[in-house]
């Protein structure tokens, strides 16, 4: 007989079989239970629904159901003209608006074949990197909440607010900017932009260390994430993972370096890779570490850009914007490195109209999330939460 209140840990055995699969052996006969998580659940980061088949505390299979935030982005692309699509791209991955705009604009610019002024490129990179930091701060903060740490969330949002203030000062909006336009920018940056960004970087550098001490090296946090949801590199590539997720699996791949765009080739930065000293390659902690390192790298990029950015008197960021944006007939697939991975746009233009014939957004979260079914097999329910958090999904981008 089993003592009351003391679960017999031997009754269920989880035996890893390599390749992310496990075999569950048990002595007791149990029944499967279907557990629906979401679409309104605090740990699903929005309106994702997971239908878990559970055997006690062990998840046998978790099937994601999407579409609760399907906002018809691709329909809109066919209905509004090119500059009009830019605000809609903002609303896809709403945590990293500038990165989305930039990805879309460089795609259309590829098709238009126009030259972008150097100053515009630098401003784009600075704002995009600022936005990347803001986005990673939300990812890290909410990941903390998922695992029961509330304080990092407050710290992250405090610092994020500084970035939002900066971006609001530049573009006029706190979150959805419509700042990067096809061929240029909506406004030049204000006069003492360099000074204020510099101030922010100086302020923020010690805070990264603080955050690191608070969360990344926290014993409980490490226990909850280390070795959880391991994804081997080749499977990750086959799943089409990108961004911090792919790098977390130890693949040295960053579009900013491997398929460079804008002024990234001139900048000196490291591709963030997890350190096997702290984590197992490919687990949730590794993905978290990559994000933490990327914040540091982004700060470096910003500093270099501030140094290199040319000062132009009476600069007009709208000068290079064509009067009528009507690309020649053809197709293009352009992409950029977003905080969550590769955001690509496939655009088909017929050369006559000012609207694309077809514009498909390849969203990173959508692809990253598709591995959920494999990742969750044989995990415990609390670990499932840790895995979803480490994927860092934004439902606006998953469902578009």
């Amino acid at each position, binding site marked *: 007989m089993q003592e009351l209140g003391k679960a017999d840990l031997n009754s269920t055995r989880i035996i890893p079989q390599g390749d992310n699969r496990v075999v569950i052996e048990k002595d007791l006969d149990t029944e499967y239970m279907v557990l629906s998580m979401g679409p309104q659940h*605090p740990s699903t980061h929005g309106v994702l629904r997971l239908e878990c088949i559970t055997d006690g505390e062990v998840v046998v299979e978790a099937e994601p159901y999407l579409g609760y935030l399907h906002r018809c982005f691709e*329909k809109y692309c066919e*209905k509004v003209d090119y500059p009009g699509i830019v605000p809609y791209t903002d609303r896809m991955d709403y945590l990293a608006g500038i990165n989305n705009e930039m990805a879309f604009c460089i795609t259309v610019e590829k098709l238009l074949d126009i030259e972008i002024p150097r100053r515009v490129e630098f401003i784009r990179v600075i704002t995009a990197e600022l936005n990347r930091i803001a986005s990673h701060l*939300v990812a890290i903060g909410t990941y903390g909440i998922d695992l029961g740490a509330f304080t990092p969330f407050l710290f992250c949002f405090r610092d994020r607010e500084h970035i939002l203030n900066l971006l609001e000062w530049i573009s006029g909006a706190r*979150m*959805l900017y419509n700042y990067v336009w096809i061929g240029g920018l909506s406004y030049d940056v204000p006069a003492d932009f360099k000074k204020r960004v510099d101030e922010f970087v100086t302020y923020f550098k010690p805070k990264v260390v603080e955050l690191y001490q608070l969360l990344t090296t926290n014993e409980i946090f490490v226990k909850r994430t280390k070795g959880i949801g391991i994804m081997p590199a080749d499977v990750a590539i086959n799943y089409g993972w990108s961004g911090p997720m792919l790098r977390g699996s130890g693949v040295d791949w960053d579009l900013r370096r491997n398929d460079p765009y804008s002024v990234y080739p001139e900048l000196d930065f490291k591709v963030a890779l997890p350190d096997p000293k702290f984590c197992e390659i490919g687990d949730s902690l590794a993905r978290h570490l990559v994000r933490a390192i990327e914040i540091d790298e982004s700060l470096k990029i910003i500093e270099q850009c501030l140094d290199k950015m040319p000062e132009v008197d009476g600069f007009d960021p709208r000068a290079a914007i064509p009067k009528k944006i009507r690309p020649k007939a053809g197709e293009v697939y352009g992409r950029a490195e977003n905080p969550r991975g590769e955001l690509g746009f496939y655009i088909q233009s017929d050369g006559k109209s000012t609207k694309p014939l077809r514009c498909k957004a390849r969203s990173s979260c959508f692809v990253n999330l598709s591995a959920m079914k494999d990742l969750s097999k044989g995990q415990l329910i609390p670990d499932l939460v840790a895995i979803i958090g480490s994927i860092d999904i934004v439902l606006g981008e998953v469902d578009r």
Partner: protein
Amino acid sequence: MGLLDARISNRNVLVTSVDNVMNWARLSSLWPMGFGLACCAIEMMATNASNYDLERFGIFPRSSPRQSDLMIVAGTVTMKMAEKVVTLYEQMPEPRYVLSMGSCSNCGGPYWNHGYHVLKGVDRVIPVDVYVPGCPPRPEALIGGLLKIQELVRMEGIGVSRQEALKKLAEKSVDPQQVIGQARKATA
């Protein structure tokens, strides 16, 4: 206006109506359901977090509809989500309030004409008390909307229906232009 403004005699005796006490208790512990749908939810989170600190109004997000008395519909409601929103609304205990945050849940927002899968306004499925416009509304705007809900609570009472309370609130409405003008004059 509020309970604390009522006169407290020197024997620490407070004379007030039951309505007042009840409303004061209710409006200073409005618990919204943490219900993030889209981009607006991020602004809602920012309002909850350090800089705007909603907890000083006694507003603290709960994860379960059964413990909350306010639903903040923050973001785009889609056709697939609409029925779930109704279910969640029905799970909330009375008296319940609904605040629709952002253009999307007010009227479909940027997705109003070609968004085949977007519900054009959450008021097509559940009754809404306060609308907060904006895409996304700033945290200040959200706080403004929440204060409006508090005012509405204050107008209610035993035997006073929501309709009557809304009517009373409408009679008491202030013209913001006037207030702004006065403030400008005062600072000039």
